[in-house]
């Protein structure tokens, strides 16, 4: 291969871009390990550079401290054991104890606060419930429809396919308001149903699976029919197994979109933290802490972002395929 003078320049540009792209990921992780002071100044208490992991000097966890400040009874009961000391002195002894018990490494503190200041586990669980339900329902609705549109002959087939193509053009944001009104009229806002129902139909999924089924040879289906299978079991026992690669790509597309979606949960969930999805929980966490607890807030961000990023790093090719599937239209 000839030496290409352009190569170093190209790498220089690409590295420059990569730094800007990675910067917030780096900061997010780094901040999630650091104390508020380190985040704000980039330096530790001795004035040295804090570094990626921070210096992990123990600091007093203010929440731990506040909730454990000595009560009157504790002071009184200890005074009985320590005759000769004044109330003030005993109080200070107890306070010192509490302070010592509440000394924590910033990394540990940030992550424990992330999980205790807000029901973060609940948010994650909601995220899993919502994304999994959406995907499963999408498949249950889309697969039979796609099969019928691809392989069965009936009156109105072309018309229905045209409808699918038409709906493909409509972004859900355009119908968000009327959908919200319909759900409100049914008393369904603030429920899992509200989070899931509008996404149960993926016209894109129908379109994608239909295109895929078109390529499946009719012999497979005929063989199934010869064996006395019903059309219904042909879908699930013949077509589904052939469609696994396409289905996987669609799963990635669907899961990524709905795990990260913020707009729709924001519209239909008002105030019930038990129903918050991770992005909504993140936004509310920021609001509740008035954006001041940067360390714990970044710990929440890391927790929400990590599952998909790790999955992506493990199966990059499939992810890029799945996400850009919409490019195949």
């Amino acid at each position, binding site marked *: 291969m000839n030496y*290409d003078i352009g190569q170093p320049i*190209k790498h220089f540009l*690409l590295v420059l*871009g*990569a730094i800007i*792209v990675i910067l*917030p*990921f780096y*900061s997010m992780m780094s*901040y999630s390990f650091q104390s508020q002071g380190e*985040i704000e*100044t*980039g330096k530790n208490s001795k004035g040295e550079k804090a570094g990626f992991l921070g210096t992990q000097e123990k600091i007093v966890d203010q929440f731990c401290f506040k909730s454990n400040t000595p009560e009157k009874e504790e002071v009184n009961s200890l005074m009985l054991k320590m005759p000769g000391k004044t109330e003030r002195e005993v109080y200070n002894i107890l306070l010192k104890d509490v302070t010592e018990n509440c000394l924590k490494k910033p990394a540990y503190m940030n992550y424990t606060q992330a999980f205790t200041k807000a029901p973060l586990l609940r948010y994650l669980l909601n995220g899993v419930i919502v994304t999994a339900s959406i995907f499963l329902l999408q498949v*249950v609705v*889309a697969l*039979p*429809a796609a099969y*019928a549109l691809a392989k*069965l002959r*009936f009156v109105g087939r072309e018309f*229905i396919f045209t*409808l*699918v193509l038409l709906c493909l*053009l*409509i972004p859900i*944001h*355009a*119908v*968000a*308001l*009327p*959908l*919200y*009104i*319909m759900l409100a009229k049914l008393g369904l806002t603030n429920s899992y149903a509200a989070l899931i*129902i*509008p996404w*149960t*139909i993926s016209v894109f999924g*129908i379109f994608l699976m239909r295109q895929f089924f078109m390529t499946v040879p009719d012999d497979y289906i005929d063989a199934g029919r010869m064996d006395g299978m019903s*059309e219904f079991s042909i879908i699930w026992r013949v077509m589904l197994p052939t469609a696994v690669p396409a289905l996987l790509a669609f799963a990635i597309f669907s899961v*990524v979109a709905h*795990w990260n979606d*913020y*707009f729709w949960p*924001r519209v239909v969930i008002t105030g019930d933290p038990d129903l918050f999805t991770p*992005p909504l929980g*993140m936004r509310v966490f*920021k609001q509740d802490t008035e954006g001041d607890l*940067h360390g714990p*807030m970044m710990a929440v*961000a890391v927790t929400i972002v990590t599952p*998909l990023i790790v999955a*992506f790093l493990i199966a*990059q090719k499939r992810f*890029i395929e799945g*996400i*850009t599937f919409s*490019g195949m*239209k």
Partner: protein
Amino acid sequence: MNSRIAHYWFVSPALVLMLLIFGIPIAIAIFLSFTDYSLGNKTFEFVGFENYFKIFTRSSYEKMWGATLRYVIVVVPLTVGLGLGAALLINSITRFSEIYKTIYFLPVMATLMAMAIVWQVMLHPTAGSINRLLSSGCEIDYIYNLFTLSFVGQEASESWYGSICNGNMPNWLGDKKYAIWVVCFVGVWQGFGFNMVLYLAGLTSVSRELYMAAEMDGAKSGWERFKLVTWPALGPTTVFVVTISFIKAFQVFDIVEAFYGFGSAGPSKSAYVMMFAIFEKGIKQNLIGVGAAISVIFLILVLSITLIQRFLVERKVHYS
């Protein structure tokens, strides 16, 4: 016999849902956009085109158009341009291309709400790392001279960077001079990797022979080959990438909510984008007529962009 009925059973759930989730809501939105309906009110009146009229004349909606158009006009060309640029660079290097691809795709996967909040922390006027970086450059002479343009004879203290070095740190999110552009920046940061992947897919279909033919025809420089072969061959990809970027740009919402949200749309509403307006008017203030009208306008915009795309595709795609 049975299978005949089964055919309709298979499509009916999809059909019913399409009607419930797309058909009826669109009809409702169009209908309500001509009324002054509010949730909870028993009656409503037809107001004709008044809601639409407001959206195109009132000053509060002028802000909406200002913010939305600024965002779209900046973000679409930049995400498309950077996506294409990154794809061309990655396609032409001999090593590490997979690593760059992975890195540039990361923001597409990451929860935008979380990442926008990270950017906000980094852009904090006093405690943020970006301003810290900017001010640390003040002490290095050549950086100071370069950025204040004093090396071409500009008065250093009057320049933008000079005033930063004098202690006027930019308040990136709180100053209406910057707010919408920062929102744009995060939009570009998040979006161009997606376009890059689409362009990379498009590039694999450009045949080697075309390049050789171009070279024989005298297209020696890389730029000439790009003009003659790559760019025309990427035509269909570009049409698609531009369309999808437009539609996504009109939907921007998360970044504004992350930065301001819960009631505000930035300093002097300078980041009052369309989705935020639908949300604020339609859901928070219960002015459903107006919210519906904005929704309808949004739908018309998206549909017309798609129609233009279809038109271009019909005309241009076939030459390859």
